[in-house]
C-alpha cells in the first residue's frame, strides 16, 4: 500500500500541476496585499517596513469602525432571525401536511437562485413603495431574506435523515407537541441549525450587492465602506484591514471547526 502511494507522489501528475496553479492564483494577490500593508508609504513601491497603516486603521478610522459595528450588528441579528425562521419552516414543511406545501418549498429557494441585483432592486422598490426609510432595519430585513433559504436547506437536509418514528416514540412516551420539538427535534438537528447560522453570519458579513441597494445614510456596512474608500484611490489602510480580516477569519474558522466537531460528535 505504502509502495503504491510513493509511486504516486514522485510521478508527474496533472492534479498536482492544477493544484499549484490554483494556489498561486488564489493566494498570490493576498500575499501582495499583506506584504504592502507593512510598507511605510502609499503605492506599489517598497520603502521600508512600518506599522503606520495599522495605526491609522485602529486609531484614525472612526467611520470604518462604525461600518464594522453595523456589519456585526446586521450579521448577528439577521442570522438569528433567519436561523429561527428557516429552522421552523423546515420542521413545519417536513412534518405538517397542508395546502401549498410544495409551492412554499419551491418559493423559499428563490432568493438563493435569483441574481443578487434583482433581489436588491426589488427590495428597494418594495421598501420605497411601502415607505420604509432605508437604514439598518431594511438591511436587516434583506439579509434575513437571503439567509433564510440556506438555513432552510441545511435543516431540511438534516431532517430528511431523521427517523419520523422517533417523533411518534416521543408522543408515545408521554411528550406533548412542545416537548417533542424542544427535547427531540431541536437537539437532533442542532448541528444543522448551527452550521446554517454560521453560514448566515458569513454571507451577511460579506454581502455587498443587496446591501448596496437597501442601505441608507449612516447605515453602511463594512463591504460598502471599503468600496467607498476605493473610489478615492486604494489606501494602504485597506491592505492593513485585509490582513486583519484574513487573520480574524482564519481564527474564527479554526474555532468553529473545533466547535462543530464537538457538537457533531455529541449528537
Amino acid at each position, binding site marked *: 500500500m505504502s509502495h503504491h502511494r510513493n509511486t504516486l507522489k514522485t510521478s508527474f501528475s496533472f492534479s498536482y500541476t492544477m493544484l499549484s496553479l490554483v494556489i498561486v492564483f488564489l493566494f498570490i494577490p493576498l500575499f501582495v496585499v499583506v506584504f504592502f500593508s507593512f510598507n511605510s508609504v502609499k503605492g506599489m513601491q517598497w520603502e521600508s517596513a512600518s506599522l503606520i497603516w495599522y495605526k491609522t486603521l485602529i486609531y484614525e478610522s472612526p467611520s470604518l469602525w462604525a461600518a464594522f459595528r453595523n456589519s456585526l450588528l446586521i450579521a448577528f441579528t439577521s442570522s438569528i432571525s433567519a436561523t429561527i425562521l428557516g429552522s421552523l419552516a423546515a420542521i413545519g414543511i417536513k412534518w405538517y401536511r397542508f395546502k401549498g406545501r410544495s409551492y412554499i418549498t419551491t418559493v423559499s429557494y428563490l432568493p438563493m437562485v435569483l441574481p443578487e441585483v434583482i433581489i436588491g432592486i426589488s427590495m428597494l422598490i418594495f421598501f420605497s413603495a411601502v415607505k420604509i426609510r432605508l437604514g439598518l432595519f431594511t438591511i436587516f430585513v434583506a439579509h434575513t431574506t437571503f439567509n433564510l433559504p440556506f438555513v432552510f436547506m441545511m435543516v431540511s437536509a438534516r431532517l430528511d435523515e431523521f*427517523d419520523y418514528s*422517533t417523533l*411518534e*416514540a*416521543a408522543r*408515545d*412516551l408521554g*411528550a406533548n407537541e412542545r416537548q417533542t420539538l424542544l427535547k427531540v427535534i431541536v437537539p*437532533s438537528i442542532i448541528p444543522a441549525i448551527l452550521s446554517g447560522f454560521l453560514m448566515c453570519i458569513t454571507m451577511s458579513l460579506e454581502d455587498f450587492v443587496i446591501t448596496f441597494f437597501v442601505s441608507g445614510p449612516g447605515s453602511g456596512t463594512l463591504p460598502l465602506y471599503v468600496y467607498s474608500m476605493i473610489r478615492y484611490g486604494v489606501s494602504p489602510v485597506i491592505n492593513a484591514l485585509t490582513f486583519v480580516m484574513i487573520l480574524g477569519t482564519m481564527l474564527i474558522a479554526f474555532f468553529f471547526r473545533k466547535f462543530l466537531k464537538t457538537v457533531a460528535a455529541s*449528537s
Partner: protein
Amino acid sequence: MKGVEVTAQRVSRSYGDFKALDNVSVQIKKGEFFSLLGPSGCGKTTLLRIIAGFDFPDSGSVAFDNKDILPLPPEKRQANTVFQTYALFPHLTVYENIAFPLRLRRTDKATVEQKVMEYVKLVQLEGHINKKPSMLSGGQKQRVAIARALINEPSVLLLDEPLSALDAKLRQNLLVELDLIHDKVGITFIYVTHDQSEALSVSDRIAVMNQGKILQIGTPYEIYEAPATRFVASFIGETNIFPCTVLSCEAHGEEFLLRLDVPQLQDEVFVTDFEAQEVGASLDFTVRPEKIRISHTPPRSNNATMNTFKGIVEEPIYSGFQSKFFIKLEKEPSTLVKVFKQHTVFLEEGPEIQWKDTVYVSWSANDGYLVKDTEQ
C-alpha cells in the same frame, strides 16, 4: 395478572380505495402474548397503530378493560410501542433514552436512576448506559427501545415487527428474551410480525390476518394443526394443498370420515374432520409435509383409510437435520408432493432416499385437513 384486556370491535380503516382494516374484531386477554400475523399490507400494523393512537379507525371501537380509548391521544394511553426502526433518540445516551419518559414527568433524580438501572438490568444492557445509539448493535438498540417502552409501566406493550431488522440468530435469542421479559412484567403484549416461526414460538394466541381481515384466532398449535382457511394453511408453515370434491361423508366415532375426489392426485383420498360436509361440496384438501411417510416399499396397510401413492423422487433438498423431497406421482397429471423426512440414523452410503428412487408416500386419514378458500 397485570395488564389490560384489549378489545377491538368492528374496526375499519381505509386509505382511499384500499381497505387496510375491514370490520376487524378481536379480544386480547389480560397479560396475554398476542401476535398479529400476516403478510405485508394485511392490516396488522394499522391495527397496532390504531391501538397506539397514531392512526384512527373510520368506524369501530377500541377499548382497554371496556374503557373506550379512541378519544385519548397516544401519550394518554396506557400503551407503549416498540418500533421496527427502534426510534431511539440519536442525541441521547442509552441511559437518557430510557430515562426520557420519566424525565418528562419531572421524576426526581434518585427515582429516575433507580428505575432506569432496574430496566437496564432487565434488558441486560449494563455497561452500555453511556453509549450513544449510533455505537450500539441492532440487537442492543432494540433492547434500549424495549426498556424505554416499559419504564412507564404501561398496561400494554405494542411491538411492531421489532426483530425484523436483525439477523436470524440474534432474532431467535432476542425472541426468547422477549418471552422472558413478558413473563417478568406480566403485561399484555401485542406483537406484530410477518414471520410465522416467530409468532408460533412465543405467542399465547395468534390472529392470522390477510387483506384487512382476521382469518383465524387461536393458539399456535390450533393455527398450525387445524388451519381454518386455505390462506392460513399455506401461510403458516409449508403444506400440500389440492382442490377436492366431497364424495361421501359418514360419522366415524366423534368425527366424520370423508371420501374425497382429488383430481390432482387422480385418486380418492380419505380424511377425517370434526365438521360434516355436504356431498358434492368443493373444498381444499391439505396435508403437512412432515405428516407424510416416505418409504421404498408400500406401507403395510391394515387400515383401509390409509392414503398411499407411488412416485419418483424428483428433487431431494438436504438441510442437515432433515431433507425435503418433491415426489412426482406416477399417475397423471404427475403432481408434485412435498415431504419432509428427518435423518434420525447415520448411513455410511448417504441418505436412505436418493434422487430418482421409486418411493411410496402415505398418510393416514386424520393427518389431512379440509380448508375453505380464503377469498370467500
